[in-house]
């Protein structure tokens, strides 16, 4: 018997030690039912919040909220084997590992979307209507690419002279390319009145994409799509840096820090929106010192500072609004934590009383 077998035997012996009942305890039943009700109520309240938020925004300008708080920062991240950057005001959506939808081209694993407007996470932008002034990039991986595929290798350059044609995502510029042994598909769509600056920005982002050997064979996870709101890319998909992602949870939001050293860390935050205190989720871990701390806070605070334990020099956190299609009264924040230690987050100023 070798070490692996002995170790496996030890695990099975130890796993048999807890005596487990198959009967659902009353307390767990109550919590489960409550959780289900909260989820349903959360969905209902979210709908009400959309209507309310629109009404409030029309009726008055919230003086406590810094105007035009961005929903992202300029970021460059790895999504599977592709490194892509996004302007601060655009929406980068990680769809690697998310289910293929009817709108996705047949036989493709969606990878990433970059748009100048918030398309939401409910459906793919492939085939969706593009706003008149919008620009969109969709990249997918062809699952069954043939090694004899004549598609050109990377890099592939897209520009004004790339012909526009009809395809599975609608009218736009279509490109197929084979970095290494995988075939990718890209669709670049532009609205009828898209700003030429935005269009060329999108071309540049696509042309600057870097594609390295795929670290993972296939995306088999049932992960839901996420907004990538911040991140810094490492040199290759293995030392990939970090990225901060957000998507809806049962009650409100789920934040995910995807980092190389220690993999990803996430929390079903289900934050209490009635409190004005910063709530730090997954603040730190035994990971790379370049990983930030992150969390969520009541919407509209003036600022948050991160105070590392044993350090008197606080750091102002970057605060981001949630994308418009996530109508929760929360903002996201993140801050560098080079000492990689625990600490606390504080509001820079108290939230003014509501008028």
């Amino acid at each position, binding site marked *: 018997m070798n070490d692996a077998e002995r170790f496996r035997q030890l695990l099975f012996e*130890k796993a048999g030690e807890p005596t487990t009942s198959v009967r659902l305890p009353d307390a767990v039943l109550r919590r489960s039912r409550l959780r289900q009700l909260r989820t349903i109520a959360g969905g209902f309240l979210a709908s009400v919040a959309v209507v309310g938020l629109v009404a409030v925004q029309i009726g008055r300008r919230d003086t406590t909220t810094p105007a035009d708080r961005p929903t992202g920062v300029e970021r460059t991240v790895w999504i599977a084997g592709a490194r892509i950057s996004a302007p601060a005001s655009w929406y980068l959506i990680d769809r690697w590992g998310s289910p293929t939808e009817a709108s996705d081209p047949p036989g493709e694993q969606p990878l990433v979307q970059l748009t100048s407007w918030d398309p939401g996470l409910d459906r793919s932008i492939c085939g969706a209507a593009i706003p008149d002034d919008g620009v969109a990039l969709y990249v997918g991986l062809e699952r069954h690419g043939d090694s004899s595929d004549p598609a050109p290798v990377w890099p592939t350059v897209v520009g004004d002279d790339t012909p526009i044609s009809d395809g599975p995502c609608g009218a736009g510029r279509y490109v197929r390319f084979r970095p290494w042994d995988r075939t990718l598909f890209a669709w670049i769509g532009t609205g009828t009145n898209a700003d030429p600056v935005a269009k060329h920005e999108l071309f540049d982002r696509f042309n600057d994409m870097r594609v390295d050997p795929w*670290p993972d064979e296939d995306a088999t996870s049932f992960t839901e799509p996420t907004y990538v709101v911040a991140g810094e890319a490492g040199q290759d998909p293995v030392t990939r840096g970090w990225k901060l992602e957000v998507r809806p949870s049962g009650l409100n939001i789920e934040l995910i820090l995807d980092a190389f050293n220690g993999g990803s860390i996430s929390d079903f935050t289900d934050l209490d929106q009635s409190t004005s205190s910063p709530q730090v989720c997954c603040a730190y871990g035994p990971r790379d010192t370049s990983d930030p701390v992150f969390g969520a806070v009541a919407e509209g605070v003036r600022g948050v500072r991160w105070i590392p334990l044993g350090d008197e020099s606080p750091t102002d956190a970057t605060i981001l609004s949630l994308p418009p299609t996530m109508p929760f009264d929360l903002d996201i924040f993140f801050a560098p934590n080079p000492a990689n230690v625990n600490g606390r987050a504080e509001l820079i100023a108290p939230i003014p009383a509501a008028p």
Partner: protein
Amino acid sequence: MEPAETRLAELYSRHVPAAIRLAYLLTGDRQQAEDLAQDAFVRCIGRFRHLRVPDAFEAYLRRTIVNLHTSGLRRRRLERAWLAREGATAARVSTSMPDVGARETLWRQLLTLPPRQRAALVLRYYEDLSEREAADVLGCSVASVKSLTQRGAAAMRLEIGSEER
């Protein structure tokens, strides 16, 4: 019992005992394992109707347990510090693990590992997941799973090599 409660009870009896065993290997504590498995069950139930693949409940529960476990880093840092102190006086484990004492020492060493290294080893050698499947649960790349497994095994002075599947 209402139909909804019956459904919950069925889900619980089908999935939670195995979840407690997994949680025990991650925590090393019976009560903590039961709490962790039940917390994960409650959280998954809250999102159950959002799951696009309801059959994936077991995998989702497993992933939630690992996430909850690795998210509780601050508390477990204290545990690890305590265990490291306790374990410092224990004899080094020989690779042949000849007796019960050595196995107990190995068990204690497993519990001193960083949570994600421990989770990677448990997912690979107890849950018998492939590197790809373990990466899905841990939410990281296959390369990270390999690295976590190798570092965990090295820390435990195990020669378990690479079982590529």
